């Protein structure tokens, strides 16, 4: 989207309204006027629940992973490598089930791209995990314990010259190049570029160009898949960009869960300083991607602050302050943080209901959290949702699903401010149980 010229003079609330209007009035060609209206009506559901008003119906926005492909007899490997299957199953699934949100198309990732990049950070079907699974993180200390000073001094240089060469085989030669910040004056330019004459660097640049083409091929497929669902079915996207909590950036894919937990005891000041250094990056990442898509919702999966993963005191002192800074930075830009809280957050509810975060400006989607408490504590200030368990989708009966959704909506959605969703990203569900989920949402969400 193009931001209005007076953007910098607008208040955060005015920016939010500009972004919500742009999302609701997305400039695409809908199949029919009825579909266009259905799209706008669905966006209105989210606008209403965000303001904690009662929507026309409770929006149903499950997190979808490999489920569509399982439904139609395909594997994870086919979803990641065959874009015709990706597009067809994605559309067919949304046509058959008609949810109110189109989430996480980005989660159906391109295998070919990772083959070219020789990506070490994950295994994926066809490359380390069985064909019918989703991608899985390979937990290691990708950032070493003695590298905090380098990260804090210059995150960009650290990423380029140390982290990326470690996690992408194809990018190893980046470690041979000087930081881009050396390029400041004419006499220093030639020495910098001499590095590019090294054969491994030339080979890397070729691979990166190939990777670019592979990424573009996938992006076109993903945009076509999303476009067909939006324009053909009137279902809006529920993720316009993404970011992460600084603690999770460090803990998920840099130091690793174990590494970061030990750092908490061995070098707590470095952990804090690194997280503070990552706050502006985390905000900027979302602002750029959301500006590009014109959709204000920022998908933020959070992991390492869940109940049991740290004490309350550590959550308050270590996890929350920099995450809160990211949330405030996004809200300042008129964006809507849409936090996907994996695991249970029963011990954190009082902290995240923080009164310094403006009310009615973000969404908390829970997994295994007590939803009555979440409603009472967080739900009085912000929209909440989620919670339908993965095990129920995979192993329950339609009757059990109906009863669960009835009870959940009865306890949380009667006065608005609630989004019905799965607790986690769904790779598996009994089709009858999944349909029962949607039907129950329609029946009890009126």
């Amino acid at each position: 989207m193009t931001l209005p010229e007076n953007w910098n003079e607008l208040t955060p609330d005015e920016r939010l309204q500009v972004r919500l209007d742009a999302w609701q009035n997305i400039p695409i060609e809908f199949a029919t006027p009825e579909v266009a209206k259905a799209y706008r009506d669905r966006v209105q559901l989210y606008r209403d629940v965000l303001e904690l008003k009662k929507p026309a119906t409770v929006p149903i926005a499950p997190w979808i992973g490999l489920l569509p492909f399982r439904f139609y007899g395909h594997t994870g490997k086919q979803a990641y490598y065959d874009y015709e299957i990706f597009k067809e199953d994605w559309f067919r699934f949304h046509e058959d089930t008609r949810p109110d949100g189109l989430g996480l198309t980005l989660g159906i990732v391109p295998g070919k791209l990772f083959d070219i990049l020789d990506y070490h950070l994950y295994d994926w079907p066809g490359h380390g995990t069985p064909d019918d699974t989703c991608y899985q993180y390979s937990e290691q200390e990708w950032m070493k314990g003695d590298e905090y000073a380098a990260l804090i001094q210059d995150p960009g240089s650290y990423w380029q010259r140390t982290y990326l060469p470690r996690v992408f085989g194809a990018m190893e030669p980046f470690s041979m190049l000087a930081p881009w910040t050396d390029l400041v004056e004419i006499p220093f330019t030639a020495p910098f570029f001499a590095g590019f004459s090294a054969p491994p660097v030339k080979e890397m640049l070729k691979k990166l160009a190939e990777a670019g083409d592979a990424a573009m091929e996938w992006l076109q497929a993903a945009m076509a898949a999303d476009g067909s669902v939006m324009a053909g079915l009137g279902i809006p996207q529920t993720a316009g960009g993404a970011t992460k909590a600084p603690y999770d950036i460090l803990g998920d894919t840099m130091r690793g869960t174990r590494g970061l937990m030990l750092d908490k005891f061995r070098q707590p000041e470095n952990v804090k300083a690194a997280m503070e250094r990552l706050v502006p990056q985390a905000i900027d990442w979302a602002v750029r991607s959301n500006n590009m898509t014109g959709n204000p919702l920022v998908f933020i999966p959070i992991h390492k602050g869940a109940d049991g993963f740290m004490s309350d005191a550590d959550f308050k002192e270590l996890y929350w302050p920099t995450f809160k800074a990211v949330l405030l930075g996004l809200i300042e830009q008129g964006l809507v943080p849409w936090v996907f809280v994996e695991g249970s957050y029963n011990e954190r509810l009082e902290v995240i209901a923080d009164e310094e975060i403006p009310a009615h400006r973000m969404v908390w989607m829970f997994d295994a959290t007590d939803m009555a408490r979440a409603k009472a504590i967080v739900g009085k200030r912000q929209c909440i949702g989620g919670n339908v368990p993965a095990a129920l989708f995979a192993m329950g009966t339609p009757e059990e699903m109906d009863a669960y959704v009835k009870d959940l909506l009865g306890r949380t959605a009667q006065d608005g401010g609630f989004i019905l969703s799965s607790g986690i990203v769904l790779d598996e569900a009994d089709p009858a149980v999944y349909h029962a989920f949607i039907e129950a949402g329609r029946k009890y969400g009126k």
Partner: protein
Amino acid sequence: MSGGLKEAVIELREEDALRIAGEELQGGTDPLEVVAACREAMDVIGRRFADGEAFIPELIMAGEIMTGITAMLKPYLKADSGGDKLGTVVMCTVQGDIHDIGKDIVVTMLDIAGFNVIDLGVDVPVAKVVETVRENKAQVLGLSGLLTVAFDSMRTTVAAVAEAGLRDDVKIMLGGAPVTDAVVEYAGADAWGKDAVAAVELAKSWVGGAS
């Protein structure tokens, strides 16, 4: 023992704990006394975890200290002087799933509690699980998984153990974030534990030592 080791471990003062353990051993303290002090300290940390006063980072840090002290103890201990083992537990993350954090914590806690633990790692083929249970006459099998695909692998693994005629000899416990009673029933396992302390309690309840 002149003391201080148990407190240092309980308070997770890594450098102090390692230093004191080293001094004790060099000073001629019976290595089994050092082992006992560590085990007592870990009991306290385990109880704090069960009571919601300690969390996964504390368990991991304690495990790290134990690993350091165990390495120091090796030259002082005869191969079989580690005391009688409570029983043999085979642990793995099931086929198709490569998540290891939870499983690793359970392995450490079982080890410290006095079990002989055989850790098969992650994404473990069903046949390997069956073979290991049989060869080691394991009394307990722990199957871990974070993904919902693990449910089917758990079920297949339990079925294979039964097929091999071993089901009556081994108790099977499940663990992992999405595991519930329904998963235990689906997989045909015996029980599930919500965390490492629960896993140790289950294993103890099955292998003679009351929990």
